[in-house]
C-alpha cells in the first residue's frame, strides 16, 4: 500500500517534470523534442536508460531511507552494540546479477543503435543513370563559421544548411583549422569535425522548419575551438523536396548572372563589396567549397548575422564595422585593412548592408 502510493507519487512528479521541461525547452533546439528519426532513436534510448536509472535510484533510496531511519542512534540507544555481520553471499549474488540484467537490457539496444546510426552505405548508392541516389552534404567547419557544399548538385552555401525533409541526408564532416563538432540538437546527435580525417553520418529531418519560432533549427559547434566557440552557431532550414529542388535551382542560377543590385544605395554597396570584400566572400552559390570566408549568396534569406546576431541592418553595419568585437579571434579583417586604412563611413556601411540584404535566392 505504502509502496504503491510512493510509486504513484513518483510518476506524477515525473509527469509534471516532463510538462515543465517541454514548456521550457525550445522546439528548435531541444533534444527532448526531436524532429528527426535519429534524434527520436536517441530519445528512445534516453527514456529507456532514464527508466532503468530511476529504478536503480528508487531501490537504493528505499533501502537507504529505511536504514537511516530505523537504525539511528536515537532510536536504537546510545549503548546498543550491533551484531558484527561479516557479509552475505546471497545478497552479494543478488546485487551482482540484477544490475547485470539491467545493463544487458540497456546494452542490447545500445549496440544495435550504434551500428544503425553508423550505416552510411546509402552515401555511395547510385541510380541507373549513375547519379547519387541520396543527398550528401560536405560540411567544413572553420574558425567560427560553417560551409555546406552539395557536391552532387554543384551548390555551396554557408551558415545556413538547407535540407529536404523525409529522407536520409548524408554528411561528410571535416575541419579546416582546429577541431569542431557538428550538432543539431533537435535533429540528432553530433559528430566531430576532425582536422585529419573525414567523418560520415546521416540525419533525417522529419519536420519542415517553417513552423518553428524562427523558421529554422539551431545548430551548434560542440567542441571548444577558441574564444568564439560559443558563437559558432549555424541554422538549418528543412523544406519539402519540391521547395528544396527549387532552392537548388535558384542557387545554381546565381552562377550564371551576377546578381545586380537594385537601387542606387545597393549599387554603391555592390561596388564597395566588389572592391573590398569579394576577394574573400563569394556571392554565387554555384560551385564547390573551400572558401576562405562564408559564401554570401543567400545572405538576405538568413535569420542571423554571423550566426548569432539578430538579422537587421543595424547589426550588419555594426558587424562589418568591428567583427573582432563581436567574435573575438575570427578571421574577418577589420575594415581598415580592406578599405585603404580607413573605417567605412556610416553611409558606406548602410550601402553595404542594403546590398547584402538584397542577396537572396528565396524571394
Amino acid at each position, binding site marked *: 500500500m505504502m509502496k504503491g502510493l510512493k510509486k504513484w507519487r513518483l510518476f506524477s512528479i515525473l509527469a509534471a517534470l516532463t510538462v515543465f*521541461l517541454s514548456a*521550457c*525547452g525550445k522546439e528548435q533546439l*531541444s*533534444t527532448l523534442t526531436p524532429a528527426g528519426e535519429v534524434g527520436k*532513436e536517441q530519445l528512445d*534510448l*534516453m527514456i529507456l*536508460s*532514464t527508466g*532503468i*536509472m530511476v529504478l*536503480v*535510484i528508487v531501490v*537504493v533510496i528505499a533501502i*537507504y531511507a529505511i*536504514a*537511516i531511519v530505523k*537504525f*539511528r*542512534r536515537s532510536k*536504537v540507544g546510545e549503548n*546498543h*552494540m550491533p*551484531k*558484527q*555481520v561479516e*557479509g552475505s553471499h546471497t*545478497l552479494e549474488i543478488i546485487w*551482482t546479477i540484477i544490475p*547485470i540484467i539491467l*545493463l544487458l537490457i*540497456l*546494452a542490447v539496444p*545500445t*549496440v544495435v*543503435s*550504434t*551500428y544503425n546510426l553508423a550505416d552510411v552505405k546509402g552515401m555511395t548508392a547510385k541510380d541507373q543513370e549513375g547519379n547519387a541516389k541520396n543527398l550528401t552534404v560536405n560540411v567544413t567547419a572553420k574558425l567560427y563559421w560553417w560551409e555546406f557544399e552539395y557536391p552532387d548538385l554543384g551548390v555551396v552555401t554557408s551558415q545556413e544548411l538547407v535540407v529536404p525533409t523525409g529522407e536520409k541526408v548524408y554528411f561528410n564532416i571535416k575541419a579546416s583549422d582546429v*577541431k569542431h*563538432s557538428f*550538432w543539431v*540538437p533537435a535533429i*540528432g*546527435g*553530433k*559528430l*566531430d569535425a*576532425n*582536422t*585529419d*580525417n573525414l567523418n560520415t553520418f546521416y540525419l533525417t529531418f522529419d519536420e519542415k522548419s517553417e513552423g518553428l519560432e524562427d523558421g529554422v533549427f*539551431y545548430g551548434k559547434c*560542440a567542441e*571548444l575551438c577558441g*574564444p568564439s*566557440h*560559443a558563437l559558432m552557431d549555424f541554422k538549418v532550414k528543412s523544406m519539402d523536396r519540391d521547395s528544396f529542388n527549387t532552392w537548388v535551382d535558384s542557387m545554381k542560377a546565381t552562377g550564371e548572372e551576377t546578381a545586380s543590385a537594385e537601387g542606387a544605395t545597393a549599387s554603391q554597396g555592390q561596388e564597395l563589396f566588389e572592391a573590398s570584400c569579394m576577394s574573400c566572400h563569394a556571392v554565387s552559390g554555384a560551385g564547390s567549397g573551400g572558401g576562405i570566408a562564408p559564401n554570401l549568396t543567400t545572405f538576405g534569406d538568413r535569420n542571423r548575422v554571423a550566426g548569432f546576431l539578430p538579422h537587421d541592418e543595424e547589426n550588419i553595419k555594426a558587424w562589418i564595422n568591428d567583427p573582432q568585437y563581436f567574435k*573575438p*579571434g575570427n578571421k574577418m579583417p577589420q575594415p581598415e585593412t580592406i578599405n585603404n586604412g580607413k573605417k567605412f563611413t556610416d553611409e558606406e556601411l548602410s550601402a553595404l548592408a542594403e546590398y547584402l540584404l538584397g542577396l537572396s535566392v528565396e524571394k
Partner: protein
Amino acid sequence: MSSIAQKRGFGATLWEYLTTIDHKKIAILYLLSGGLFFVVGGIEAMLIRIQLAQPDNDFVSAGLFNQIITMHGTTMIFLAAMPLLFGFMNAVVPLQIGARDVAFPFLNSLGFWLFFFGGVFLNLSWFLGGAPDAGWTSYASLSIYSPGHGIDFYALGLQISGAGTLIAGINFLVTIINMRAPGMTYMRMPLFTWTTFVASALILFAFPPLTIGLFLMIFDRMFGANFFDHTMGGNTIIWEHLFWIFGHPEVYILVLPAFGIFSEIFPIFSRKRLFGYSSMVFATVLIGFLGFMVWAHHMFTTGLGATANAIFAVATMAIAVPTGVKIFNWLLTMWGGNIRFATPMIYAVAFIPTFVAGGVTGVMQAAAPLDYQLHDSYFIVAHFHYVIVGGVVLALLAGLHLYWPIMTNKLLSETMGKWTFWLFFIGFHLTFFIQHFLGLLGMPRRVFTYGADQGWDTFNLISSSGAVLMAAGVIILLVNIVMSLMSKDYVGRDPWGDGRTLEWAIPQPVPFYNFEKTPLVRGLDTFWIEKQEGNEEGMVYAEPLGDIHMPNNSIIPLIMAFGLFVAAFGAMYHQDEGKGWTLIFLIIGLLITLGSMAVRSLKDDLGYHVHKEDLPSYKGGNE
C-alpha cells in the same frame, strides 16, 4: 623525547617543514597547498558561474573565460583533489598499517615539492601573459594552434607535478607491499589502505601515457616536432587517446580513495563491521582493472567507428556492477547498525544518493548513441560534478572532519561542520541538478555566453545561485579550521569512540616515529578486536622496545624540484623571438636538479637513531 617537545621559533618551524621527510608533516603540506589550490579553483568556478548567471553577460571576455574553465578543471583535478587525497593517504596509511613511515621518505618529500612547483608554475601563467585556454583536455588541434605561452605552462606544469604524482604513487605501493606490520595480511588491510593501493597502481600505469602525451605536445610546440600537425603527417587523435588512456583511470584515481574514506566512516559511525569486506576489496580491484578498458567512451563522437564505440560502450557499463556492489555493501553496513550522525557520517550519508545519481548518468552516457546527444553538453558537466563533487569532494570534507583529530589532536566544531554541510550540499544540488536539463535543452559546455533566445536563462541563474551557497559553506569551513587550530581542546586518542583500525590506537599527539614498537595485528579491525578484549593499550606488540632508526631531514628534494621549475622557463621561452638566451635557464635548471641528485647519491645519508632510553615507555633494563 624532550628533544621534540621543544618550542620552536617561526623560522625553525618553516625550515622544519621545508626539509621534512616525515609523512605526517608532508601530509600537512599536501593539505595546505591542496586546500589553497582548491580555493583558487573554487574562485575560478565562481567566476564561471557569475559569467553564466545571465545571457549575453560580459563580466569576463571570451578568451579569458576559456582560460578560467581550463584552469578551473586543471587546478581542481591535478592540484586540489589529488593532492588533498595524497594528504590523507600520507596522514593515515602508514599509521593504518603500523609502519614507521613510508617506504621512501626522501622521495615522499620530492614528490610533494614536484607537485608544488608544478602547480605554482601552472598558476604563474595568469601573470605571465595568459593561462592555458584549450580546456583541461587540451585537445591537440586547438592547443597547437593556441598562441602565447598558456599551453606551454599547461604542458610543462603538468609534466613537473605529474612526475611528483608518479613518485608518490610508487612510494605508497611499496609502503603497502613491504611495510605492513606483522600480521597485517592483505586481507586484513583497512579499506582506505586498499583503495590507496589500487589508486596508486592506477597512477603507476596511467601517468606514463600522460607523460608521453605532454612530451609530444612540448616537442611540437617548443622544438618543432610534428606529432599533431596533420599537414606534416601528424595525427591529433593520438593526443585524444593518450590523454584519455590517462584521463579515465584518473577519475578512478580520484574516486577510489574517496570510497576508501567512506568505507572507514560507515563502520565507525554505524559501530559495525564493514559489510562484505572481501567483496569490497574485490570490487576495488575490479574497478581499477576495468578502468583501463573504457577510455574511448570520451571519444564516442570522434568517429572511431561503430565497432569501437560498441565495445567501449559495453565495457563502460560493466563498471556499474562493482560500483553497485560497493554501494549496497555500504547500505548493509548501516543496516542493523547504531548510526551516529556526526559530521563525517552526514557527509557519508549524503554521498550515497548523490554519487548514485552521478554514476547512473555516467551509465547513460555510456550508451554511445545517446552520448552523441549528451557529449560536450551541460549534461556531462552535471555528470562529472555529481561524481567528483558528490563523491570526491564530499569524501575530502568528510575525511577532513574524520582525521582532523589524528593530525591535530583536536576536533572541528560539529555545529559549524553541520552548517558547512547543509550549505554545501543544498548549494551543490541546486547548482548541478539543473545542469542535466540544460544539457538536454541543447546547451553545449565551454561556452562563454549564450543568447537570451536560447531558453536557458532561468536554469543558469538557479545554477549560479547554488554556487554561492557552496562558497558560503566553504568559507564557514575555513573559519572552523582556523578556530580549531587556535583552540586548546585536546581530545586524545580515539575521539569518535568507535575507531576500529590502528590509526585510532596510536597515542596522541602521534610521536614523530609513530609506533614505539611495531604492533602485531591479530585480525581485521585490529584496534576494535583489542578493545573488545579489554586491552586498554589498544595494541599488542610484535617486538621488544629497541632503538628506532630515523632518516634525516633534507632540503635537497625542494632544490631538485626547483631546478625543474627553472628549467621549464628556459624550455618555454627559448623559442621566442630574441629570447634564445633563455635556453641558459633550461641548462642551469637541469644542472641544479642533476647536481642535487649527485649530492644526494654521493653523500651517504644513513639517518640517526632514537635510543630506546629516550622513549616514553622505557622502564630500564632490557624489557
